[in-house]
């Protein structure tokens, strides 16, 4: 187990170093940072002094090491567009994205699992057919279009919910939350549904497939033979065993949710990190892009690592394979 952990950590670190190298190459070779900071008409002496100050006259590997060192402390320099430290920008915007992502994930689970269970238990019902068609359309409908349609119906036509922004936020120390005000909660509804809809259809189909599989097994038949009620058979025995793979996939999808938040945040002008990132792509704001790249890579690497460990803990067959390989 320890060897497995160490190997996976080494892999994760390697991935992060490669991503860091790409980010650093962005920094170093795309555009001249000295020109950015001093302007076009600085004297050669000024440039040479700035070069030395920034350490740009050192060899490449030393510069990279310095970059990694600073990145580990969360320092990525100044945003070229806003002229403020990237770390400050991220700290301001992280709460918005995390609240949105968690709300979307909860929505996907809370709606997707019951729908999937229903679709598995009532296979011939018209509602099940409707769910399945919905999931097909949900796959073909791009995230941004879902957002636009929701805005059109609930914000423009009905006027029930706000169409952009976070509403009022309350500061809890460094964390600004929209969850404690009525307008903040109202503003969260449409973006969370937009972001979670695709994952919801995914979870629904997965729950249905797993549930159908489980209901065919012998222990369910024995549970019935013991005279347990339908309720106990379906929910105590069936659903429990369905949930393991469903939760795993949901966990793996968390990274995708954060990535797809870029789109949802653009549609709803949600002041999170995704919006910051897309603006940095548009304006070629290299430090922000590099920092976002590193951060999102970290999220994915951590999620994959945790899932691998969980699989390892849950599935004894993997451990046997490992022992056999040795």
């Amino acid at each position, binding site marked *: 187990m320890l060897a497995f952990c160490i190997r996976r950590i080494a892999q994760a670190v390697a991935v992060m170093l490669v991503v860091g190298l790409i980010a650093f190459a962005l920094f170093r070779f*795309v555009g001249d940072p000295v020109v950015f900071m001093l302007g076009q008409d600085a004297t050669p002496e000024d440039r040479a002094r700035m070069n030395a100050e920034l350490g740009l006259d050192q060899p490449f590997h030393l510069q990279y090491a310095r970059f990694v060192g600073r990145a580990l402390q969360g320092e990525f320099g100044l945003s070229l567009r806003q002229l403020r430290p990237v770390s400050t920008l991220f700290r301001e915007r992280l709460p918005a994205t995390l609240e949105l992502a968690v709300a979307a994930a909860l929505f996907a689970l809370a709606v997707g699992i019951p729908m999937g269970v229903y679709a598995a238990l009532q296979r011939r019902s018209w509602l099940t057919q409707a769910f399945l068609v919905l999931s097909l359309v949900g796959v073909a409908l791009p995230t*941004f279009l879902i957002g*636009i349609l929701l805005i059109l119906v609930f914000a*423009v036509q009905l006027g029930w919910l706000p169409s952009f922004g976070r509403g009022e936020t309350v500061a809890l120390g460094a964390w600004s939350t929209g969850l404690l005000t009525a307008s903040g909660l109202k503003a969260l509804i449409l973006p969370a549904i937009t972001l979670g809809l695709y994952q919801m259809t995914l979870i629904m189909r997965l729950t249905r497939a797993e549930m159908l599989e489980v209901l065919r097994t012998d222990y369910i038949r024995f549970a019935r033979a013991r005279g347990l009620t339908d309720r106990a058979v379906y929910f105590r025995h069936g659903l429990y065993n369905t949930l393991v793979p469903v939760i795993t996939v949901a966990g793996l999808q968390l990274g995708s949710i954060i990535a*797809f938040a870029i789109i949802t945040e653009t549609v709803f002008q949600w002041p999170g990190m995704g919006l910051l990132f*897309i603006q940095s*792509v548009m304006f070629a704001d290299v430090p922000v*892009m590099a920092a976002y790249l590193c951060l999102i*890579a970290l999220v*994915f690497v951590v999620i994959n690592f945790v899932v691998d460990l969980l699989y390892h803990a849950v599935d004894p067959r993997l451990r046997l394979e490992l022992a056999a390989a040795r």
Partner: protein
Amino acid sequence: MTRLAAFLDSDLAWSFRHSPVTVVAAIVAVVSIVGAIGAPLFAPHDPFDLAKLDLLDAFAPPAWFDQGKAMFLLGTDDQGRDVFSTILYGTRISLAVGVASVVLSMVLGTGLGLLAGYVGGVLDAIIMRVADVQLSFPAILIALLINGLARIAWPDAAHAGIAFWVIVLSIGLSGWVQYARTVRGSTLVEARKEYVQAARVIGRHPLAIMFRHVLPNVTGPVLVIATIHLATAITTEATLSFLGVGMPPTTPSLGTLIRIGNDFLFSGEWWITVFPGVALVTLVLSVNLLGDWLRDALNPRLR
């Protein structure tokens, strides 16, 4: 028996005829594609000829509304462009980007997959490690990053004709992994077969063996992936354009049209957004259904 008759008699044609959903999807897809390719022929107006645009025509609702004009079936946008015509032209661009990206992914992925599977060793390890890492990130994120890099490299990418190739590059490079993995797997199986060993014994060049002998036998799964990938590529293109880092408004794709229309959602001109959206979803859904059918029809285990 002629070739056509042989094809109509094949398993593939039989399964096609017996799946009504697939037939409908195919008709919808063909209509979209023909309409898009022949846009200059079918479009009632030329939306990009500035001389023919009249701002007095702007914001006309669809023809069946009271203020609608019969000559603008689906209404007009803020510049007086006919929405139906822009959709035809937009579908053309969306399809062009989609097909070009799929071809790029396919060529790159199939080539690397063949190399990895046939040569093996360190090359295989490197290619597959890169594939693993790339696969753990969503394709849209990779496409966005490549797009950002390209924008920095060519600062005028937003306006010029480069935009098209920047998008093709970002979508194409983000999608090769699927092809490479599948082709590598099939190549490993094929490489052990006798015909490959025979070719090796008579001294054919490894590249010739890979591309002349192995490649034709691994194309089935590649075709399936390409069809489903086309749907994804069109969606990704639309998303990039909607985010403002895709096709410029002067040569709009469906995604750009939706982005333009989005600005007028609040003043009640919903048709500028909704109709391109419907066109996009119909196209993607039909291509997706065709891909699903092809996958099942070519899978011998499901027969």
